[in-house]
Protein backbone atom coordinates (compact mmCIF):
# COMPACT_ATOMS: atom_id res chain seq x y z
CA UNK A 1 0.00 0.00 0.00
CA UNK A 2 2.64 2.48 1.16
CA UNK A 3 6.27 1.99 0.31
CA UNK A 4 9.07 4.08 1.78
CA UNK A 5 12.40 4.12 0.01
CA UNK A 6 15.49 5.41 1.82
CA UNK A 7 13.66 8.18 3.63
CA UNK A 8 15.91 10.72 5.35
CA UNK A 9 14.53 13.69 7.27
CA UNK A 10 16.96 16.20 8.69
CA UNK A 11 16.14 19.08 11.02
CA UNK A 12 19.33 21.10 11.02
CA UNK A 13 21.99 18.68 12.14
CA UNK A 14 19.59 16.11 13.55
CA UNK A 15 18.50 13.22 11.37
CA UNK A 16 15.06 12.53 12.84
CA UNK A 17 14.54 9.82 10.24
CA UNK A 18 17.70 8.24 8.93
CA UNK A 19 17.47 6.05 5.84
CA UNK A 20 14.23 4.22 6.49
CA UNK A 21 12.77 1.83 3.96
CA UNK A 22 9.75 -0.38 4.46
CA UNK A 23 6.39 -1.19 3.00
CA UNK A 24 3.03 -1.38 4.68
CA UNK A 25 0.92 -4.20 3.37
CA UNK A 26 -2.57 -3.61 2.06
CA UNK A 27 -5.36 -4.73 4.39
CA UNK A 28 -3.01 -5.18 7.31
CA UNK A 29 -2.84 -3.46 10.68
CA UNK A 30 0.77 -2.48 11.16
CA UNK A 31 2.18 -1.21 14.44
CA UNK A 32 4.98 1.34 14.65
CA UNK A 33 6.70 1.41 18.03
CA UNK A 34 9.85 2.79 19.53
CA UNK A 35 11.07 4.99 22.36
CA UNK A 36 10.30 8.73 22.55
CA UNK A 37 12.02 10.69 19.85
CA UNK A 38 12.56 7.65 17.64
CA UNK A 39 11.13 9.49 14.64
CA UNK A 40 7.73 7.79 14.43
CA UNK A 41 5.64 10.95 14.19
CA UNK A 42 8.10 12.45 11.74
CA UNK A 43 7.67 9.40 9.55
CA UNK A 44 3.88 9.75 9.68
CA UNK A 45 4.23 13.39 8.69
CA UNK A 46 6.25 12.31 5.69
CA UNK A 47 3.72 9.68 4.65
CA UNK A 48 0.85 12.15 5.05
CA UNK A 49 2.66 14.97 3.25
CA UNK A 50 2.89 17.29 6.23
CA UNK A 51 6.67 17.17 5.71
CA UNK A 52 8.60 16.52 2.55
CA UNK A 53 11.63 14.30 3.20
CA UNK A 54 15.18 15.54 2.75
CA UNK A 55 15.69 12.57 0.47
CA UNK A 56 13.99 9.31 -0.39
CA UNK A 57 10.69 8.40 -2.00
CA UNK A 58 7.14 7.71 -0.83
CA UNK A 59 4.97 5.47 -2.99
CA UNK A 60 1.24 4.94 -2.65
CA UNK A 61 0.25 1.77 -4.48
CA UNK A 62 3.15 2.27 -6.82
CA UNK A 63 2.58 5.99 -7.50
CA UNK A 64 5.32 8.36 -6.41
CA UNK A 65 3.65 10.82 -4.00
CA UNK A 66 6.83 12.17 -2.38
CA UNK A 67 6.02 15.78 -3.34
CA UNK A 68 2.24 15.58 -3.37
CA UNK A 69 0.61 18.10 -0.99
CA UNK A 70 -1.29 16.60 1.95
CA UNK A 71 -4.81 17.49 0.77
CA UNK A 72 -4.26 15.63 -2.47
CA UNK A 73 -3.04 12.58 -0.57
CA UNK A 74 -6.21 12.81 1.46
CA UNK A 75 -8.23 12.58 -1.74
CA UNK A 76 -6.23 9.50 -2.68
CA UNK A 77 -7.60 7.80 0.41
CA UNK A 78 -4.98 8.56 3.02
CA UNK A 79 -6.14 9.76 6.45
CA UNK A 80 -4.25 10.53 9.62
CA UNK A 81 -4.72 11.60 13.20
CA UNK A 82 -2.35 13.92 15.02
CA UNK A 83 -0.49 12.97 18.18
CA UNK A 84 -1.24 16.39 19.66
CA UNK A 85 -4.94 17.01 18.93
CA UNK A 86 -5.48 19.38 16.01
CA UNK A 87 -9.14 20.16 16.55
CA UNK A 88 -10.92 23.01 14.80
CA UNK A 89 -11.36 24.88 18.06
CA UNK A 90 -14.15 27.33 17.26
CA UNK A 91 -16.22 24.78 15.33
CA UNK A 92 -18.69 22.55 17.11
CA UNK A 93 -17.91 18.87 17.48
CA UNK A 94 -20.51 18.08 14.84
CA UNK A 95 -19.00 20.63 12.47
CA UNK A 96 -15.55 19.17 13.09
CA UNK A 97 -16.75 15.86 11.72
CA UNK A 98 -18.88 17.29 8.92
CA UNK A 99 -16.08 19.47 7.63
CA UNK A 100 -14.04 16.30 7.10
CA UNK A 101 -16.75 14.85 4.88
CA UNK A 102 -16.87 15.22 1.14
CA UNK A 103 -18.88 18.38 0.50
CA UNK A 104 -17.26 19.49 -2.73
CA UNK A 105 -20.41 21.14 -4.13
CA UNK A 106 -21.07 23.16 -1.03
CA UNK A 107 -17.45 24.18 -0.88
CA UNK A 108 -17.93 26.19 -4.05
CA UNK A 109 -18.45 29.84 -3.02
CA UNK A 110 -20.72 30.50 -5.97
CA UNK A 111 -23.01 27.61 -5.06
CA UNK A 112 -22.97 28.74 -1.44
CA UNK A 113 -24.44 32.11 -2.39
CA UNK A 114 -26.67 31.41 -5.36
CA UNK A 115 -27.40 27.69 -5.72
CA UNK A 116 -27.95 26.42 -2.24
CA UNK A 117 -30.27 23.66 -3.35
CA UNK A 118 -27.39 22.02 -5.11
CA UNK A 119 -25.63 20.77 -2.01
CA UNK A 120 -28.54 19.88 0.28
CA UNK A 121 -28.40 16.18 -0.44
CA UNK A 122 -24.65 15.98 -0.05
CA UNK A 123 -24.87 17.95 3.20
CA UNK A 124 -27.57 15.66 4.53
CA UNK A 125 -25.51 12.55 3.79
CA UNK A 126 -22.47 14.01 5.52
CA UNK A 127 -24.63 14.98 8.48
CA UNK A 128 -26.00 11.46 8.87
CA UNK A 129 -22.53 9.98 8.73
CA UNK A 130 -21.26 12.46 11.26
CA UNK A 131 -24.09 11.57 13.63
CA UNK A 132 -23.32 7.87 13.31
CA UNK A 133 -19.65 8.49 13.94
CA UNK A 134 -20.46 10.60 16.99
CA UNK A 135 -22.70 7.87 18.35
CA UNK A 136 -19.99 5.30 17.89
CA UNK A 137 -17.36 7.46 19.58
CA UNK A 138 -19.74 8.33 22.44
CA UNK A 139 -19.46 12.00 21.64
CA UNK A 140 -23.08 12.70 20.78
CA UNK A 141 -23.80 14.47 24.05
CA UNK A 142 -21.17 17.11 23.24
CA UNK A 143 -21.96 17.51 19.56
CA UNK A 144 -22.92 21.19 19.90
CA UNK A 145 -19.98 22.04 22.13
CA UNK A 146 -17.05 23.95 20.68
CA UNK A 147 -14.29 21.45 20.02
CA UNK A 148 -11.78 23.71 21.77
CA UNK A 149 -13.59 23.03 25.06
CA UNK A 150 -13.31 19.24 24.89
CA UNK A 151 -11.07 17.23 27.20
CA UNK A 152 -7.82 15.80 25.91
CA UNK A 153 -9.26 12.33 25.48
CA UNK A 154 -12.37 13.63 23.73
CA UNK A 155 -10.18 15.55 21.31
CA UNK A 156 -8.37 12.31 20.50
CA UNK A 157 -11.69 10.70 19.73
CA UNK A 158 -12.57 13.63 17.54
CA UNK A 159 -9.32 13.11 15.63
CA UNK A 160 -10.27 9.51 15.04
CA UNK A 161 -13.81 10.47 14.02
CA UNK A 162 -12.55 12.97 11.50
CA UNK A 163 -10.31 10.44 9.84
CA UNK A 164 -13.15 7.90 9.70
CA UNK A 165 -15.33 10.51 7.99
CA UNK A 166 -12.89 10.49 5.09
CA UNK A 167 -13.72 6.84 4.23
CA UNK A 168 -10.01 6.27 3.71
CA UNK A 169 -8.11 3.30 2.41
CA UNK A 170 -5.20 3.87 4.76
CA UNK A 171 -5.43 5.43 8.22
CA UNK A 172 -2.40 6.55 10.19
CA UNK A 173 -3.18 6.66 13.91
CA UNK A 174 -0.64 8.49 16.06
CA UNK A 175 -1.04 7.39 19.70
CA UNK A 176 -4.79 7.42 19.48
CA UNK A 177 -5.02 5.51 22.74
CA UNK A 178 -3.18 8.02 24.92
CA UNK A 179 -5.71 9.49 27.34
CA UNK A 180 -8.74 7.45 26.32
CA UNK A 181 -10.49 5.28 28.89
CA UNK A 182 -9.96 1.51 28.71
CA UNK A 183 -13.51 0.51 27.89
CA UNK A 184 -13.79 2.89 24.99
CA UNK A 185 -10.30 2.01 23.85
CA UNK A 186 -11.39 -1.62 23.69
CA UNK A 187 -14.35 -0.61 21.57
CA UNK A 188 -12.13 1.40 19.27
CA UNK A 189 -9.86 -1.61 18.88
CA UNK A 190 -12.85 -3.69 17.87
CA UNK A 191 -13.94 -1.02 15.41
CA UNK A 192 -10.48 -0.89 13.89
CA UNK A 193 -10.51 -4.69 13.57
CA UNK A 194 -13.95 -4.63 11.98
CA UNK A 195 -13.07 -1.88 9.51
CA UNK A 196 -10.00 -3.85 8.64
CA UNK A 197 -11.68 -7.23 8.23
CA UNK A 198 -15.01 -6.20 6.72
CA UNK A 199 -14.08 -3.18 4.66
CA UNK A 200 -10.42 -3.82 3.99
CA UNK A 201 -9.14 -0.57 5.55
CA UNK A 202 -5.40 -0.55 6.07
CA UNK A 203 -4.10 0.84 9.35
CA UNK A 204 -0.75 1.89 10.63
CA UNK A 205 -0.66 2.87 14.28
CA UNK A 206 1.88 4.33 16.62
CA UNK A 207 1.30 3.23 20.19
CA UNK A 208 3.36 2.98 23.35
CA UNK A 209 1.02 0.47 25.02
CA UNK A 210 2.41 -2.79 23.70
CA UNK A 211 -0.53 -4.84 24.95
CA UNK A 212 -2.77 -2.74 22.78
CA UNK A 213 -0.41 -3.21 19.87
CA UNK A 214 -0.35 -6.95 20.45
CA UNK A 215 -4.15 -7.11 20.37
CA UNK A 216 -4.37 -5.40 16.99
CA UNK A 217 -1.22 -5.66 14.98
CA UNK A 218 0.00 -8.70 13.15
CA UNK A 219 3.03 -6.80 11.94
CA UNK A 220 5.18 -4.55 14.13
CA UNK A 221 7.97 -2.21 13.06
CA UNK A 222 10.37 -0.99 15.74
CA UNK A 223 12.19 2.31 15.34
CA UNK A 224 14.93 3.89 17.41
CA UNK A 225 16.98 7.00 16.75
CA UNK A 226 15.55 7.48 13.30
CA UNK A 227 16.27 3.97 12.07
CA UNK A 228 14.25 0.78 11.74
CA UNK A 229 15.57 -1.67 14.30
CA UNK A 230 13.57 -4.71 13.47
CA UNK A 231 10.24 -5.94 12.24
CA UNK A 232 8.10 -8.96 13.01
CA UNK A 233 5.21 -10.17 15.17
CA UNK A 234 4.82 -8.54 18.55
CA UNK A 235 6.25 -11.57 20.32
CA UNK A 236 9.27 -11.65 18.10
CA UNK A 237 10.12 -7.99 18.59
CA UNK A 238 9.37 -8.06 22.31
CA UNK A 239 12.14 -10.48 22.90
CA UNK A 240 14.58 -8.99 20.45
CA UNK A 241 17.81 -7.98 22.18
CA UNK A 242 18.17 -4.75 20.17
CA UNK A 243 14.65 -3.68 21.07
CA UNK A 244 15.25 -4.25 24.76
CA UNK A 245 18.49 -2.36 24.42
CA UNK A 246 16.78 0.57 22.70
CA UNK A 247 14.04 0.83 25.30
CA UNK A 248 16.07 0.19 28.41
CA UNK A 249 19.60 1.03 27.46
CA UNK A 250 20.76 -2.57 27.86
CA UNK A 251 19.04 -3.46 31.13
CA UNK A 252 17.84 -7.06 31.42
CA UNK A 253 14.16 -6.28 31.31
CA UNK A 254 11.49 -7.56 29.06
CA UNK A 255 9.59 -4.93 27.15
CA UNK A 256 5.96 -4.45 28.06
CA UNK A 257 5.56 -7.12 30.71
Amino acid sequence: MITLENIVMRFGGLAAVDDVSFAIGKGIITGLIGPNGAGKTTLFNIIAGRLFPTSGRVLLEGDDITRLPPHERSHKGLARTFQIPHEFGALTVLENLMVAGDTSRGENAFNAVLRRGLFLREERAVYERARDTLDFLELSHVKSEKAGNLSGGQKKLLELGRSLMREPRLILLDEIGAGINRTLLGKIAEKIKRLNEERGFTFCLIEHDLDYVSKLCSDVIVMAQGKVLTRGTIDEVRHDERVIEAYFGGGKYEVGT
Partner: protein
Amino acid sequence: MDPVGLLFFLVGFLIMAGIYAILCLALNVQWGYGGLFNAGIAGFFAVGAYTSALLTAAPAPTHLGGFELPVLVGIIAAAVTAGLTGWAVAKICIRLKSDYLAMASIGIAEILRMVIVNEDWLTNGSLGITNIPRPFDGLLQGREADILFLAFVWVIVAIVYLVCNRLYDSPWGRTLRAVRDNEDAARAVGKDVDSFRLQTFVIGAALMGVAGALSAHYFRFLSPEATEPLLITFLVWVMLMAGGSGNNKGAIIGALSVWAIWSLTEIVTNRLPAEFATRSSYIRMLLIGLLLQFVLQKYRSGLLPERSPGIAFDKDKDKTHG
Protein backbone atom coordinates in the same frame (compact mmCIF):
# COMPACT_ATOMS: atom_id res chain seq x y z
CA MET B 1 -29.17 72.03 16.59
CA ASP B 2 -32.48 72.42 14.79
CA PRO B 3 -34.47 69.28 13.95
CA VAL B 4 -33.78 69.50 10.24
CA GLY B 5 -30.09 69.93 10.84
CA LEU B 6 -30.18 67.00 13.21
CA LEU B 7 -31.96 64.88 10.62
CA PHE B 8 -29.31 65.55 8.04
CA PHE B 9 -26.55 64.97 10.51
CA LEU B 10 -28.17 61.61 11.10
CA VAL B 11 -28.47 60.91 7.37
CA GLY B 12 -24.80 61.68 6.84
CA PHE B 13 -23.93 59.57 9.84
CA LEU B 14 -25.88 56.58 8.57
CA ILE B 15 -24.42 56.82 5.07
CA MET B 16 -20.90 56.65 6.44
CA ALA B 17 -21.89 53.94 8.92
CA GLY B 18 -23.28 51.93 6.00
CA ILE B 19 -20.02 52.27 4.08
CA TYR B 20 -18.12 51.20 7.18
CA ALA B 21 -20.53 48.30 7.64
CA ILE B 22 -19.57 47.00 4.20
CA LEU B 23 -15.86 47.36 5.03
CA CYS B 24 -16.42 45.59 8.30
CA LEU B 25 -18.33 42.72 6.67
CA ALA B 26 -15.53 42.43 4.13
CA LEU B 27 -12.88 42.28 6.83
CA ASN B 28 -15.00 39.74 8.64
CA VAL B 29 -14.87 37.45 5.61
CA GLN B 30 -11.08 37.75 5.55
CA TRP B 31 -10.27 37.78 9.24
CA GLY B 32 -13.38 36.49 10.98
CA TYR B 33 -13.93 33.49 8.71
CA GLY B 34 -10.53 33.04 7.19
CA GLY B 35 -8.03 34.30 9.77
CA LEU B 36 -6.25 36.46 7.18
CA PHE B 37 -4.69 39.53 8.72
CA ASN B 38 -5.33 42.23 6.13
CA ALA B 39 -3.79 45.49 7.35
CA GLY B 40 -4.14 47.13 3.96
CA ILE B 41 -7.89 47.72 3.82
CA ALA B 42 -7.33 51.32 2.72
CA GLY B 43 -5.52 50.11 -0.40
CA PHE B 44 -8.43 48.04 -1.71
CA PHE B 45 -10.83 50.79 -0.70
CA ALA B 46 -8.76 53.25 -2.75
CA VAL B 47 -8.61 51.00 -5.80
CA GLY B 48 -12.40 50.67 -5.74
CA ALA B 49 -12.94 54.37 -5.15
CA TYR B 50 -10.68 55.46 -8.02
CA THR B 51 -12.02 52.85 -10.41
CA SER B 52 -15.59 53.96 -9.98
CA ALA B 53 -14.69 57.65 -9.92
CA LEU B 54 -12.69 57.51 -13.15
CA LEU B 55 -15.37 55.51 -14.93
CA THR B 56 -18.34 57.62 -13.92
CA ALA B 57 -17.01 61.19 -13.57
CA ALA B 58 -17.31 63.83 -16.26
CA PRO B 59 -14.33 64.01 -18.63
CA ALA B 60 -11.54 66.25 -17.40
CA PRO B 61 -8.09 67.03 -18.81
CA THR B 62 -6.54 66.70 -15.35
CA HIS B 63 -6.96 62.95 -15.02
CA LEU B 64 -7.54 59.84 -17.04
CA GLY B 65 -10.98 58.94 -18.20
CA GLY B 66 -14.13 60.55 -17.08
CA PHE B 67 -16.22 58.12 -19.06
CA GLU B 68 -19.58 59.11 -17.58
CA LEU B 69 -20.63 55.49 -17.27
CA PRO B 70 -23.60 54.60 -15.04
CA VAL B 71 -22.81 54.48 -11.32
CA LEU B 72 -23.79 50.83 -11.07
CA VAL B 73 -21.24 49.95 -13.75
CA GLY B 74 -18.65 51.90 -11.78
CA ILE B 75 -19.43 50.03 -8.59
CA ILE B 76 -19.26 46.62 -10.27
CA ALA B 77 -15.98 47.60 -11.93
CA ALA B 78 -14.71 48.73 -8.52
CA ALA B 79 -15.44 45.28 -7.13
CA VAL B 80 -13.63 43.68 -10.07
CA THR B 81 -10.47 45.81 -9.92
CA ALA B 82 -10.23 45.64 -6.12
CA GLY B 83 -10.83 41.89 -6.33
CA LEU B 84 -8.10 41.53 -8.95
CA THR B 85 -5.75 43.57 -6.78
CA GLY B 86 -6.62 41.26 -3.92
CA TRP B 87 -5.93 38.28 -6.14
CA ALA B 88 -2.47 39.61 -7.04
CA VAL B 89 -1.66 40.37 -3.40
CA ALA B 90 -2.90 36.96 -2.32
CA LYS B 91 -0.89 35.20 -5.01
CA ILE B 92 2.26 36.78 -3.59
CA CYS B 93 1.49 36.74 0.13
CA ILE B 94 -1.03 34.06 0.97
CA ARG B 95 1.50 31.50 2.01
CA LEU B 96 2.85 33.96 4.53
CA LYS B 97 1.81 33.42 8.10
CA SER B 98 -0.64 35.95 9.43
CA ASP B 99 1.76 38.47 10.95
CA TYR B 100 3.83 38.58 7.77
CA LEU B 101 0.70 38.94 5.70
CA ALA B 102 -0.18 41.96 7.85
CA MET B 103 3.14 43.59 7.09
CA ALA B 104 3.00 42.76 3.42
CA SER B 105 -0.54 44.11 3.08
CA ILE B 106 0.34 47.39 4.83
CA GLY B 107 3.24 47.76 2.43
CA ILE B 108 1.17 47.09 -0.65
CA ALA B 109 -1.59 49.45 0.46
CA GLU B 110 0.96 52.21 0.97
CA ILE B 111 2.44 51.57 -2.47
CA LEU B 112 -1.03 51.92 -3.98
CA ARG B 113 -1.53 55.20 -2.16
CA MET B 114 1.82 56.52 -3.35
CA VAL B 115 0.85 55.65 -6.89
CA ILE B 116 -2.41 57.55 -6.45
CA VAL B 117 -0.68 60.63 -5.04
CA ASN B 118 2.15 60.69 -7.58
CA GLU B 119 0.62 59.61 -10.87
CA ASP B 120 -1.31 62.80 -11.57
CA TRP B 121 -2.05 61.89 -15.18
CA LEU B 122 -4.16 59.07 -13.81
CA THR B 123 -5.69 60.48 -10.66
CA ASN B 124 -4.93 64.21 -10.65
CA GLY B 125 -2.76 63.53 -7.60
CA SER B 126 -3.60 65.29 -4.39
CA LEU B 127 -5.96 67.71 -6.16
CA GLY B 128 -8.37 64.87 -6.67
CA ILE B 129 -11.27 64.07 -8.96
CA THR B 130 -14.39 66.20 -9.01
CA ASN B 131 -17.86 65.84 -10.52
CA ILE B 132 -18.36 62.25 -9.47
CA PRO B 133 -22.05 61.46 -9.91
CA ARG B 134 -24.43 59.67 -7.60
CA PRO B 135 -27.01 57.12 -8.67
CA PHE B 136 -30.43 58.62 -9.51
CA ASP B 137 -28.82 62.03 -9.89
CA GLY B 138 -31.37 64.69 -10.77
CA LEU B 139 -34.24 62.78 -9.22
CA LEU B 140 -34.00 64.81 -6.05
CA GLN B 141 -32.14 68.02 -5.41
CA GLY B 142 -29.90 69.26 -2.64
CA ARG B 143 -30.04 67.61 0.72
CA GLU B 144 -32.99 65.40 -0.11
CA ALA B 145 -30.66 63.61 -2.48
CA ASP B 146 -28.73 62.46 0.57
CA ILE B 147 -31.75 60.53 1.76
CA LEU B 148 -31.95 58.75 -1.57
CA PHE B 149 -28.26 57.93 -1.37
CA LEU B 150 -28.73 56.67 2.17
CA ALA B 151 -31.32 54.20 0.94
CA PHE B 152 -29.02 53.16 -1.90
CA VAL B 153 -26.12 52.52 0.48
CA TRP B 154 -28.18 50.44 2.87
CA VAL B 155 -29.67 48.37 0.06
CA ILE B 156 -26.12 47.47 -0.83
CA VAL B 157 -25.32 46.79 2.82
CA ALA B 158 -28.29 44.42 2.90
CA ILE B 159 -27.11 42.60 -0.23
CA VAL B 160 -23.56 42.30 1.10
CA TYR B 161 -24.89 41.06 4.43
CA LEU B 162 -27.00 38.43 2.69
CA VAL B 163 -24.07 37.25 0.60
CA CYS B 164 -21.78 37.10 3.65
CA ASN B 165 -24.36 35.17 5.64
CA ARG B 166 -24.83 32.63 2.90
CA LEU B 167 -21.09 32.21 2.59
CA TYR B 168 -20.85 31.75 6.33
CA ASP B 169 -23.70 29.27 6.58
CA SER B 170 -22.40 26.82 4.00
CA PRO B 171 -19.78 24.10 3.66
CA TRP B 172 -17.60 26.80 2.12
CA GLY B 173 -17.74 28.90 5.27
CA ARG B 174 -17.33 25.88 7.50
CA THR B 175 -14.23 24.80 5.63
CA LEU B 176 -12.82 28.29 5.82
CA ARG B 177 -13.28 28.43 9.58
CA ALA B 178 -11.59 25.05 9.82
CA VAL B 179 -8.67 26.38 7.79
CA ARG B 180 -8.48 29.34 10.13
CA ASP B 181 -8.52 27.17 13.26
CA ASN B 182 -5.97 24.61 12.11
CA GLU B 183 -4.50 24.58 8.64
CA ASP B 184 -2.62 21.30 9.02
CA ALA B 185 -5.73 19.46 10.09
CA ALA B 186 -7.68 21.10 7.26
CA ARG B 187 -5.14 19.82 4.77
CA ALA B 188 -5.26 16.39 6.36
CA VAL B 189 -9.00 16.19 5.67
CA GLY B 190 -8.47 17.11 2.04
CA LYS B 191 -8.96 20.87 1.95
CA ASP B 192 -6.95 22.98 -0.45
CA VAL B 193 -5.94 25.61 2.09
CA ASP B 194 -4.25 28.00 -0.34
CA SER B 195 -7.22 28.01 -2.66
CA PHE B 196 -9.66 28.78 0.15
CA ARG B 197 -7.48 31.61 1.40
CA LEU B 198 -7.16 33.03 -2.07
CA GLN B 199 -10.93 33.03 -2.57
CA THR B 200 -11.49 34.65 0.80
CA PHE B 201 -8.99 37.37 0.19
CA VAL B 202 -10.43 38.16 -3.23
CA ILE B 203 -14.04 38.26 -2.02
CA GLY B 204 -13.09 40.52 0.90
CA ALA B 205 -11.03 42.82 -1.31
CA ALA B 206 -13.84 43.12 -3.86
CA LEU B 207 -16.30 44.15 -1.14
CA MET B 208 -13.80 46.71 0.15
CA GLY B 209 -13.67 48.09 -3.38
CA VAL B 210 -17.46 48.48 -3.37
CA ALA B 211 -17.24 50.46 -0.13
CA GLY B 212 -14.57 52.68 -1.67
CA ALA B 213 -16.76 53.34 -4.69
CA LEU B 214 -19.73 54.27 -2.52
CA SER B 215 -17.64 56.76 -0.58
CA ALA B 216 -16.44 58.42 -3.79
CA HIS B 217 -20.03 58.78 -5.02
CA TYR B 218 -21.20 60.07 -1.68
CA PHE B 219 -18.69 62.92 -1.52
CA ARG B 220 -18.79 63.49 -5.31
CA PHE B 221 -15.11 64.19 -4.88
CA LEU B 222 -12.15 61.91 -4.38
CA SER B 223 -8.63 62.75 -3.26
CA PRO B 224 -5.96 60.66 -1.54
CA GLU B 225 -7.10 62.04 1.81
CA ALA B 226 -10.25 59.93 1.58
CA THR B 227 -8.13 56.79 1.75
CA GLU B 228 -6.27 57.67 4.94
CA PRO B 229 -5.33 54.34 6.60
CA LEU B 230 -6.06 55.71 10.07
CA LEU B 231 -9.64 56.36 9.07
CA ILE B 232 -10.12 53.24 7.01
CA THR B 233 -7.87 50.40 8.09
CA PHE B 234 -7.50 51.22 11.78
CA LEU B 235 -11.11 52.18 12.40
CA VAL B 236 -12.48 49.14 10.57
CA TRP B 237 -10.32 46.84 12.66
CA VAL B 238 -11.59 48.51 15.82
CA MET B 239 -15.16 48.09 14.57
CA LEU B 240 -14.77 44.40 13.87
CA MET B 241 -12.99 43.68 17.14
CA ALA B 242 -15.61 45.55 19.13
CA GLY B 243 -18.57 44.14 17.22
CA GLY B 244 -17.37 40.55 17.23
CA SER B 245 -15.19 38.99 14.57
CA GLY B 246 -16.75 35.95 12.97
CA ASN B 247 -20.23 37.43 13.33
CA ASN B 248 -21.85 39.38 10.49
CA LYS B 249 -24.40 41.09 12.72
CA GLY B 250 -21.55 41.94 15.05
CA ALA B 251 -19.66 43.51 12.15
CA ILE B 252 -22.59 45.83 11.41
CA ILE B 253 -23.20 46.63 15.09
CA GLY B 254 -19.50 47.36 15.47
CA ALA B 255 -19.52 49.70 12.48
CA LEU B 256 -22.59 51.57 13.75
CA SER B 257 -21.47 51.92 17.34
CA VAL B 258 -17.83 52.83 16.73
CA TRP B 259 -18.81 55.28 14.01
CA ALA B 260 -21.36 56.80 16.40
CA ILE B 261 -18.70 57.30 19.04
CA TRP B 262 -16.28 58.62 16.46
CA SER B 263 -18.86 61.16 15.27
CA LEU B 264 -19.73 62.20 18.81
CA THR B 265 -16.11 62.77 19.71
CA GLU B 266 -15.95 65.06 16.70
CA ILE B 267 -18.66 67.22 18.22
CA VAL B 268 -16.75 67.35 21.49
CA THR B 269 -13.33 68.01 20.03
CA ASN B 270 -14.72 70.73 17.75
CA ARG B 271 -15.69 72.70 20.83
CA LEU B 272 -12.30 72.46 22.42
CA PRO B 273 -10.23 75.63 22.64
CA ALA B 274 -8.12 76.32 19.58
CA GLU B 275 -4.87 75.01 21.02
CA PHE B 276 -6.48 71.60 21.48
CA ALA B 277 -8.43 71.58 18.25
CA THR B 278 -5.32 70.86 16.18
CA ARG B 279 -4.63 67.90 18.39
CA SER B 280 -8.15 66.58 18.12
CA SER B 281 -7.43 63.82 15.64
CA TYR B 282 -5.01 61.94 17.82
CA ILE B 283 -7.06 62.62 20.94
CA ARG B 284 -9.93 60.89 19.18
CA MET B 285 -7.73 57.98 18.16
CA LEU B 286 -6.64 57.63 21.75
CA LEU B 287 -10.26 57.66 22.92
CA ILE B 288 -11.21 55.01 20.38
CA GLY B 289 -8.23 52.89 21.41
CA LEU B 290 -9.21 53.12 25.06
CA LEU B 291 -12.77 52.27 24.22
CA LEU B 292 -11.68 49.15 22.36
CA GLN B 293 -9.63 48.09 25.37
CA PHE B 294 -12.66 48.58 27.56
CA VAL B 295 -14.97 46.58 25.30
CA LEU B 296 -12.49 43.74 24.96
CA GLN B 297 -11.99 43.59 28.72
CA LYS B 298 -15.69 43.12 29.19
CA TYR B 299 -16.54 41.11 26.09
CA ARG B 300 -13.51 39.13 25.06
CA SER B 301 -14.83 38.18 21.64
CA GLY B 302 -16.68 41.42 20.97
CA LEU B 303 -20.29 42.40 21.54
CA LEU B 304 -21.65 39.55 19.39
CA PRO B 305 -19.19 36.66 19.37
CA GLU B 306 -18.89 34.08 16.59
CA ARG B 307 -21.66 31.48 16.59
CA SER B 308 -21.78 28.32 14.59
CA PRO B 309 -24.50 28.61 11.97
CA GLY B 310 -26.03 25.30 12.99
CA ILE B 311 -27.17 22.50 10.73
CA ALA B 312 -30.66 22.95 9.35
CA PHE B 313 -31.74 19.31 9.80
CA ASP B 314 -30.03 18.87 13.15
CA LYS B 315 -33.27 18.85 15.15
CA ASP B 316 -32.34 17.72 18.65
CA LYS B 317 -30.28 20.80 19.38
CA ASP B 318 -31.59 20.96 22.93
CA LYS B 319 -29.32 18.22 24.25
CA THR B 320 -26.63 20.75 25.04
CA HIS B 321 -26.34 24.47 24.78
CA GLY B 322 -24.66 25.72 21.62
